[in-house]
């Protein structure tokens, strides 16, 4: 027989245990509400800008950071609003993102994949960044995109041009506004054939990492389709600074075109070396020797000085474009910094706006909701008959009508073919747009052999 007695101490203990028991599910419920990584508080939201502040692409990185700072100002309702006025989506009203003030942290990718991952990781884990954006190298972009996918944050790629970023290495949480190597080849090759003829022998120097490889593959395929012959392709290390020993063999190779699949500081040095070795004064096979730089930027043109005159390449955007969006951006950026923005700055600015817009349309910072908003509904680019022509269609951000394609998270828009200007009127007036290649000429299917092999996978909300 047992005797059931209630003591004062016992009652207190039981009460405390019951209280804790009742409270427990509430604690878990609170946790469950924070169903994604770095859910922002009520007053502010933190974005992570991961750009190369040192290394061969530091110039682009510095300009990217300026653009991000400008985008943050505009989102928070400071300055003249820039492209917020011209953006076809009108949900952004200068009150931050979903009423939260936009703050940011920065990291230095050093143009090295491991350093970039480390700085992105630190911004996600220590600073609570809800979105990571930036990068001026595809090696870095692919590495950071993978990290963001695992961590459950959105990655809005900066300047990355490798086919792999939205090809074999594409990820559901990653988005690229910048064009890619395939598009450069497709846009540039017809212009090259028109200028230099169909009977040419090309020698490639290629930066030895993902961007260089896919850039070379793309331009080789595009030029060979027009009848050009590829004499040789030599891989050069990204860290190389003197390219003379790679340039010298070009002289005796029988080639009459040198294609420099280099970017940033690499391209500045290789082009300078090529000009020093007199390649541009040379005659081979009865033709003038020509140099081509498939991916061009004004910052590179500035670094290479006189040597860029008359050299063809492609670019994502140029400040001299006359559309409303470009003009608004150039005005804001130019007024704030005293010089026009680069293509790297443009793509980063636009990516920040597109992220903010997607969050606002989704009415949530939850990554999977943002992914859904960026993938859009059923809108498509006019004039392209393809089942994959679906995604989020927007305009007014400097490239004309642009589609964020749902199938691979790649933007499709017109591509600019540019040439180093012969008679620049100012220190910024270095490139001239010689052709705007319409988007249907650079369109490809998601399963194109140069992009095949990857899978977007499922979006990840993280914690």
């Amino acid at each position, binding site marked *: 027989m047992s005797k059931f007695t209630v003591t004062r101490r016992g009652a207190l203990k039981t009460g405390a245990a019951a209280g804790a028991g009742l409270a427990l599910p509430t604690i878990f419920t609170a946790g469950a509400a924070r169903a994604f990584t770095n859910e922002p508080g009520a007053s502010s939201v933190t974005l992570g800008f991961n750009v190369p*502040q*040192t*290394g061969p692409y*530091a*110039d682009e*990185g*510095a300009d990217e950071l300026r653009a991000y700072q400008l985008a943050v100002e505009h989102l928070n309702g400071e300055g003249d609003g820039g492209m917020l006025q011209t953006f076809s989506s009108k949900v952004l009203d200068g009150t931050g993102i979903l009423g939260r003030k936009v703050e940011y942290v920065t990291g230095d990718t050093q143009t090295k994949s491991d350093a970039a991952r480390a700085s992105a990781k630190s911004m996600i884990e220590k600073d609570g960044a809800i979105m990571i954006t930036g990068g001026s190298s595809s090696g870095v972009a692919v590495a950071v995109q993978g990290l963001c996918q695992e961590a459950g944050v959105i990655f809005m790629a900066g300047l990355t041009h490798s086919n792999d970023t939205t090809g074999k290495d594409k990820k559901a949480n990653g988005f690229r506004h910048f064009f890619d190597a395939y598009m450069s080849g497709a846009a540039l090759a017809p212009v090259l054939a028109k200028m230099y003829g169909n009977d040419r022998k090309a020698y490639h120097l290629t930066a030895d990492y993902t961007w260089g490889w896919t850039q070379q593959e793309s331009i080789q395929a595009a030029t060979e389709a027009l009848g050009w012959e590829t004499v*040789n392709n*030599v891989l050069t*290390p990204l*860290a190389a*600074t*003197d390219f*003379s*020993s*790679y340039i*010298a*063999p070009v*002289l*005796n190779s029988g080639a009459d075109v040198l294609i420099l699949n280099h970017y940033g*500081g690499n391209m*500045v*040095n290789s082009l*300078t*070396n090529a000009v*020093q*070795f*007199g390649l541009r*004064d*040379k*005659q*081979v096979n009865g033709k003038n020797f020509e140099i081509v730089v498939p991916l061009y930027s004004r*910052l590179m043109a500035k*670094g*290479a*000085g*006189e040597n860029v005159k008359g050299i063809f390449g492609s670019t994502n955007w140029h*400040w*001299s474009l006359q559309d409303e969006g470009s003009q608004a951006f*150039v*005005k804001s950026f*130019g*007024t704030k910094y005293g*010089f*026009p923005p680069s293509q790297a700055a443009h793509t980063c600015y636009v990516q920040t706006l597109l992220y903010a817009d997607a969050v606002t349309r989704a009415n949530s910072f939850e990554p999977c909701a943002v992914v859904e908003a960026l993938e859009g509904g059923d809108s498509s680019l006019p004039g392209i008959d393809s089942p994959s022509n679906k995604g989020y269609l927007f305009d007014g951000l400097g490239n004309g009508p642009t589609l964020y394609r749902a199938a691979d998270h790649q933007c499709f828009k017109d591509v600019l073919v540019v040439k180093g200007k012969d008679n620049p*009127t*100012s220190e*910024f*007036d270095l490139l001239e747009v010689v052709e705007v290649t319409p988007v249907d000429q650079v369109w490809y299917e998601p399963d194109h052999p140069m992009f095949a092999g990857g899978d977007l996978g499922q979006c990840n909300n993280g914690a």
Partner: protein
Amino acid sequence: MDAIILQILNGLDKGSAYALIALGLTLIFGTLGVVNFAHGALFMLGAFCAVTLNRLLTLSFETIDETKTDFLGNPMKVKTPYVEAWFGPETGAAIIDWAVPLSILFAIPIMIAIGFAMERGLIKHFYKRPHADQILVTFGLAIVLQELIKLFFGANPIPTPAPDIFRGSFDFGVLLGFDPNVIIYPYWRMVYFLFAMVIIGGVFAFLQFTTFGMVVRAGMADRETVGLLGIDIDKRFTFMFGLAAAVAGLAGVMYAPINSPNYHMGMDFLVLSFVVVVVGGMGSLPGAVLAGFLLGILESFASMTWVKDIVPGIDQIIIYLVAIIILLTRPRGLMGRKGVMED
């Protein structure tokens, strides 16, 4: 054959830079016994002397040209360099055009002063400390100098062109009976090679034929005895540090048109120059020069396409491979003194 000649020529200019930096490094090691990891930074500072003079000469005043507009649609600001206003457009433009050679005069006092300051201010306190401490402090100094340059000049390469007269290239092939345009070599790289030969010759002549040089050499051989003879060898060694800094600086000044200077260029050369010193023999001046040219040419050969086809990536490791072989078979280096690095 033509490709081989071309790569030899190509190796000469890179070899010249290696030789000049290694010469200074080994001079400092031989006199002061210090392993100076900041030597690459001195090369970089030299290149930035050229950049600085270029900037000084192109200092401009602005006038408004109402007939043109800038990228924002405002009246265009036209910049005119002061030197062009003072000396007339033609003379002014010529002075600016010759900025790099003029920088030699500008760089010599600056680099000697920097060398003096470095030695007196920092490195002398580390003479009696282990080599590891010296390496750490000079490496730290190199990073500080590098970051300072980055702060003032940015992280990007700054184009610093050679005078117009040296643009273009010389057709060696025609001289040797080949077809035109087969072996061509940029004029400025030839100038660089000749300049390096003059500097190297000058340093050797100074050490060989002047009393000062003889005392320095005696000090390198036996510091204590020279000291016992009542000679203030420390003062002379400080001067040698300044001289080594000037040699590295001049190597940098003249290298600026070959590759646009950036804050990191010193580090790129430093490691290779150390390998050059080790291969040539620690403390051996002729060894440093010989190994500099040898490794420069070897590196050029290794980047030839057919060599890379046989051993991919050989161009990146050839210098280190040679260093390993030399250290294993002849630790004192090609021309090192017996006993050095061999105990």
